[in-house]
Structure formats: C-alpha cells, structure tokens
C-alpha cells in the first residue's frame, strides 16, 4: 500500500496558508515524493475562512482533495471549529495558542504560540505561515528540514531570506 499523508492548513484569508501549502508540497517534491496542493476559497480575497490542502505520497495521488486529514493546522478559532471533525483518529492537531483546545481525546494536540512568535521573536506577523510550517515539520517530520528550508527559500521574495530562516528556526524551537 502507498504511504500517504493528508494535511489541512486552516486559518483566515491573508495568513499565507496557500503559500504555506505550496511550500510544503515543494518540500515533498524535494524529498523525491509526490504531492498535490489544492485550496478552496470563496469570492473574498482577505478575511473569511481559508484552507489549503496538501497530499504527500510515495506513489500516484488520484483523488486530489483532502477528506479526513492526518495533520490539521488551525490558526484561528473559526477554522479549528470548522475542521476539527475532519481530523482522523490519532491525527495531529496543531493550533495557535489563542485557539481553545477542542474536546477530543483521540488526537494529539499541540498548542503553540505561532502568531506571537512571528510577531515577538521574528518581528513580522506575516511569517506566521513559515513558523507554522517549521512547527508542523518538527512534530510530524512530514518532510525533511533541509527540503523544507530549500522550498521556503525558493518561494519567498528576494531580500526576505534571512527573515524566513529566522522564522523557520523559531518554529523548530517551538517544539
């Protein structure tokens, strides 16, 4: 059987979750795996609920959408409330510490100061997505850290490399 991991990144529009999904999928390709990234969105561009989905597999990926996920990231309460049911039994939930810990005792929960770390330690709220990716990777090892860093540097704007490396480092340190 194929080894497949389904990841849902959720939060609000503008938090960079679609970019985070793209980076995670590219990191998986760097590892030599297969990956599909997709998103669902409404007509709004900012605010509102946003989610990005990534499937990583060592073989072909047919159905491209995530149904029940192995890993769920929720940066907002609304997103967590909406998607918590879609997390598989024994799945990994990573939430910002501003989100209430949900009532489920069949999952692993990591409540981490993702948004605060981006603001206080890295100094830019917009790198919360990169902090979150590092935390996800530190917990789940879904890609290798080298591949993740390479993927981050490949996607972020020129001149922000140092900032994003710092965001990765702080994210790894959260775990």
């Amino acid at each position, binding site marked *: 059987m194929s080894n497949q991991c389904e990841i849902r990144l959720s939060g609000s529009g503008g938090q960079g979750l679609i970019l985070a999904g793209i980076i995670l*999928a590219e990191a998986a390709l760097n590892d030599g795996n297969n990956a599909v990234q997709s998103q669902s969105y409404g007509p709004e561009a900012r605010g509102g609920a946003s989610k990005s989905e990534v499937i990583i597999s060592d073989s072909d990926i*047919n159905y491209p959408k995530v149904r029940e996920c192995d890993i769920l990231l929720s940066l907002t309460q609304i997103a967590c409330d909406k998607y918590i049911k879609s997390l598989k039994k024994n799945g990994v939930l990573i939430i910002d510490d501003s989100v209430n810990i949900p009532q489920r005792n069949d999952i692993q929960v990591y409540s981490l100061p993702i948004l605060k770390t981006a603001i206080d330690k890295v100094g830019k709220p917009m790198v919360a997505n990169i902090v979150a990716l590092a935390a996800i990777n530190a917990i789940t090892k879904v890609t290798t850290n080298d591949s993740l860093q390479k993927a981050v540097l490949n996607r972020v704007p020129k001149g922000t490399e140092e900032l994003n490396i710092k965001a990765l480092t702080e994210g790894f340190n959260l775990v």
Partner: protein
Amino acid sequence: MKNKKIKLMQGNEACVEGALAAGMKFFAGYPITPSTEIAEISSLRLPRIGGKFIQMEDEIAGMAAVIGGSLAGLKSMTATSGPGFSLKQENLGYAVLAEVPCVVVNVQRGGPSTGLPTMPAQGDIMQAKWGTHGDHPVIALSPSSVRETFDLTVKAFNYAEKYRMPVILLTDEVIGHMREKIEIPDPDEIEIIDRLKPEKGLDEYKPYEIKEGQVAPEMAAYGEGYRFHVTGLIHDETGFPSNDSKVAGDLVNRLMKKIDDNIDDLTLYEEYKLDDADIAVISYGITARSAKSAVDMARAEGLKVGLFRPMIIWPFPEKQIAQLGKRVKNIITAEMNLGQYVLEVERVANKYTNITKCGKANGELITPDEILAKIKEVQ
C-alpha cells in the same frame, strides 16, 4: 542523470506552458474565474517572446480577436469559463465555417448562468458539442492532471492547425487550480504541427480549395500579400458567399469529413484494469481520478472493475465504447453533471450492456466512495 525540469505547477499554468511549447503567439480574452491565471500568465509570457496579449471588452470580442490573430498567421488561444463559454459560441461557429485554427480553453465551473464561480463542474460537455448552431465538427479534449493539461494543450494546437478548426480544451476548477508534480518535456520531445501554407502565387490562390490528400485547405496569412475573403456565410472555394445548395451541402459535408475520415487520429483514451473486467467505469477529466481510486478499492475487494478514460471526448470514441459494451456486463458513466456523456454511451452501447449514470452538480467532486457505492449497486 541530468536534473529534469520537475516543478510543482497549477493546471492553468501548465496550459500556458503547453500553449507556448506548441507555438502560441497570440492570446485574447476576458479574464474569468477559474480560468484567470491562463490570461494572467499569457500576459506576462507572450510579450517576452514577441507575442501579443490583448484583454478585450468581453468574451465575444476575445473570441473574435483570436480568429483575427489566427487569420493573420499566429497560433492563437483564448480561455474562459462558465458564462464566458456561452458567449464564445457564436464566434466558435464562425471559426468552424471559416476554418480558422484556434484553441478555446474552458475551465469548467458550476452552472447554469454565473453559477458557482469558484467550484468545479463538468456541465459543459454537451455545450462543447452543440453550443454553436448548425451541423459542425467538434474536437474537445479533457485532461485529468496537470501534466496532461500541458500535453493536451499541445495536441489541441496541433489538431487546430492540422484540421483548420477551433479545438476546445475542457478542464475544470480543480484541474485548473490544483498544483502537482509536472516534468516539462524537452522541446525536441514535443511534436509540433503547423498549418499548410499556400504553394500557389498571389494571383492563383483560392483560400478554400482542397487538393488531393489534404484534410484542410492551405492557409495564407493576412499581411503576406494574399488577398482573400473570409466569411461566416456558406462560401465556395474562392471564399465568397454562395446560395448554391450543392456548394452548401459539399462544404458542410467536407467540414464533417475532417473528423469522420480521421477518427483514428482523433481517438485518445486510457484503459485501466479493463482486461478481465465485468464492470467498466467511463469517466474523463478530474472525475476519472476518483474513478481510478474507486477501481482500485473495488479490486481490493475482489470485484472485477476497470476504467475507460477518454482524453479526446469529442469526437466520441464510438468503436471503443461499442466494443467495451460487448465485453462487460455493466457500464457506469461517472461525470460531474446530471447526465451528459452518458447519453452518448447509451446511444452506442445500450444494446449490449446495462448503463448506469453516476453524477452530481453541486460544486463538489464525485468521490471514490460514491463511485464504489455505485459499483456495488450494479454488481
């Protein structure tokens, strides 16, 4: 081994890459979700290679400009979605009758009307075939992956040039927007077909003269010095209008024969685990991915199920579907609409086998579980 060009790419991006690889030099259109990236990326890329991009005032004008670009000698494409595809129909017919090669991409979204702009559908299957009025030939392709979007866009240009007609690429919101691994082939691995250019001099050229062995007339470009007339009226080989019933009958029949006489060239499909199958699922585009998963799930339970996946959906692969009907006890047609392609499957295979449809039109993909449930129902 050298590092092949492996990338994570969106379907819409792969469509533009395929178009550029095939030689696209002109894009005109009116951006509409979920096809917008095709216009956006074309607007970035075309000027860098000496091509032209025009955003027109609406979809009708976009299609008209594409016809003009092609008549001026450039490989031309437009992309649209939903109500935009409805607006293209009149000029699509013009391109058929005037024999103007071009590619029309329809990234399908939920309908009718403005419908569900950000959600997928496969509801334009019959519209692709019959959307413009009159008897006319249609070539429509439907990719199931990002890589196949690249490949079939190249093919769409090749067929357009070879048969001198518009070719429709039918994708959908999910294929267009999802990102997956793609290995872009080297240019020397890609077959490119160009339209035939006139052999005769300026004075002797007849724009719609067919010579022995040709599937479509030789095509001069406006601006090269040739003077010729192009019209949406029935015309003779000079290009000027005619009301003669023989001319009319001969022309429409000749247009249809482009498809009928070249059906093998215009048949492209994948068979998956069909060899010993009792049940065949017929599915295309994004839904075929769910169908493939469903086949694997059914096989794991010992059910003999296979998949027939047409990549060219029009012309309809009649011969193959009829043979399939004789081989299996059941055919399930899975498509993201309430029953369109299944009508053709029924027409061809109803006398040989049981046919069931599996469809929905609510903006959501058909899941492998839904197809598996249908397999168990008919089994």
